[in-house]
């Protein structure tokens, strides 16, 4: 159908970007659902992107290998830095992970012989097909859904509400937090890999504070009460720049405004099954 072909020719990047952003939002959802505000996922995305891109460009690896490497690398880094860092709580964890993000960015800038430094990597093969993104999203959603409805999901929720009580239920809190952190890193790396092989150029500034805040905003906007929340948040934040094209610099102001307004007025995010249920008069039942 010509109509569809036209649509796709113009909007394919947008749709794929949507899928990738949804993946990113889901990656931070994982740690948020465990009660941790970890702002390192942009950095993990970058680690995944650079690892995969360098493999593809320098060693001509098959795409699937690059993808797996792009997930494994951030997972390993997360495991190593998670051990000391996850002992911290609340604000300190957020600060430490923010700092880590900066460290990664500076590291990339200073290893320009390998990573191209400030100039970034150009000419990454555009291997990402629409079905890669779709498959990734479906797989991640399925995994997270299964996780949520198992003892692991219940453990995460209980840790989020009351870590001490959760521990006294026989839950190994440290191990669960690490699982969420590492898995979140792997998903962020996956998103980074797919993104790098879509946009064919990556640079260190793409994985810094701005990206980290974007990811957080997506999760906060959509809400973390269910898997639909991050996906919704990712969708809106991908489409928003398109809608606001005319505003130029001020469109980022809108992002900031969204964050503030959501926090003030809709703290549970847009996708809040309990609130939606209330609207339909069924109030009080558990979501």
């Amino acid at each position, binding site marked *: 159908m010509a109509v569809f072909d036209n649509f796709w020719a113009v909007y394919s990047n947008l749709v794929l970007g949507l899928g990738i952003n949804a993946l990113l939002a889901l990656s931070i959802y994982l740690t948020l659902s465990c009660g941790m505000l970890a702002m390192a996922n942009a950095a993990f995305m970058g680690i995944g992107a650079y690892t995969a891109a360098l493999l593809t460009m320098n060693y001509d690896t098959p795409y699937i290998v690059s993808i797996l490497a792009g997930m494994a690398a951030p997972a390993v880094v997360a495991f190593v830095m998670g051990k000391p860092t996850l002992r911290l709580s609340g604000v300190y964890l957020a600060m430490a992970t923010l700092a880590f993000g900066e460290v990664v960015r500076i590291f990339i800038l200073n290893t320009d012989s390998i990573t191209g430094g400030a100039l970034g990597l150009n000419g990454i093969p555009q291997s990402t097909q629409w079905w890669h993104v779709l498959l990734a999203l479906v797989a991640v959603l399925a995994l997270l859904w299964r996780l949520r409805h*198992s*003892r692991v999901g219940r453990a995460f*929720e209980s840790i989020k509400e*009351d870590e001490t009580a959760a521990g006294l*239920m*026989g839950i190994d809190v440290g191990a669960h937090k690490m699982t969420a952190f590492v898995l979140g890193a792997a998903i962020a790396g996956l998103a980074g890999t797919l993104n790098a092989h879509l946009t064919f150029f990556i640079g260190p500034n793409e994985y810094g504070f701005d990206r980290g805040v974007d990811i957080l905003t997506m999760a906060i906007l959509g809400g973390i009460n269910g898997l639909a929340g991050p996906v919704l948040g990712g969708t809106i934040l991908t489409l928003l720049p398109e809608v606001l094209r005319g505003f130029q610099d001020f469109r980022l102001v809108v992002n900031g405004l969204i964050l503030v307004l959501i926090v003030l007025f809709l703290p549970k995010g847009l996708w809040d099954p309990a609130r939606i249920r209330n609207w339909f008069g069924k109030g*009080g*039942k558990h979501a």
Partner: protein
Amino acid sequence: MSATLQLKNISRHFGGLKVLQDVNLDIPQGGIFGLIGPNGAGKTTVFNLITGLLPPTSGTISFEGRDLAGTKPHEITRGGIARTFQNIRLFKEMSLLENVMVGMHAQLRYGTLGLLGTSGLFRSEEKRARERARELLSWMKLDHKAEDTADNLSYGDQRKLELARALATEPKLLLLDEPVAGMNANEKTELMREIEQISGRGYTIFMIEHDMRFVMGLCQEIAVLNFGRIIAQGGPDAIRNDPQVIEAYLGRDEDEPASGPDGIVTDGAPSPVAAGVAPTSVSGPGAQA
């Protein structure tokens, strides 16, 4: 009966503050053991030490012969000790059923990787968890509210839910921290019966309580803690008549007659009121420690 839980020379200091000094307790297997004492005596600290939330400054705690030193709280729970909290720590945004299912965490036999598979193990274990949770809720007569959110419950029901959740961890020893605080008389009587039934099923119960009628009615043996020291230990009658215990509970001025823990007026000589000792009423709601 051999001791299932043993505290030997347990002391706990916070800086200069000696919260517990040289506490010795032997909790036998089976039966119901009570720990009473005025507010601030250090009772909850004893529970915090047993469950591994705090390390003792000195002394040892052993459970079923094994020294608990250095064991992490979740490992202690998996080893068979469960507890409820004085200030109720439910997972308020989860349903009653889910709260109890969380307690079953360590009992479920599929690993994190196991839940990826479509094998029957995951499904059957989840089913088992659900059924067991419902069963425990029905013991507490809460099964009709299984899908409700936990923070919609009345205060008394919340305490019962905490108990059901603790039972879900399949403990051998149940630590109950003021299980009837804040309940009305009917709720207390009901819970008393439920605890008796639980005890009858073979669980060892160790409880902290302020309500004397409750404690005297349920416990076979009672220890009394005052200012971090055990001042008496024995059966209900012995404790009721122990002069040191009576003195510890006095918070009166000179005109009032002395009364022991269960309100029986005795002819005790006026003794200096220990600073900070709160008078305990017989069956009123326990004062917030």
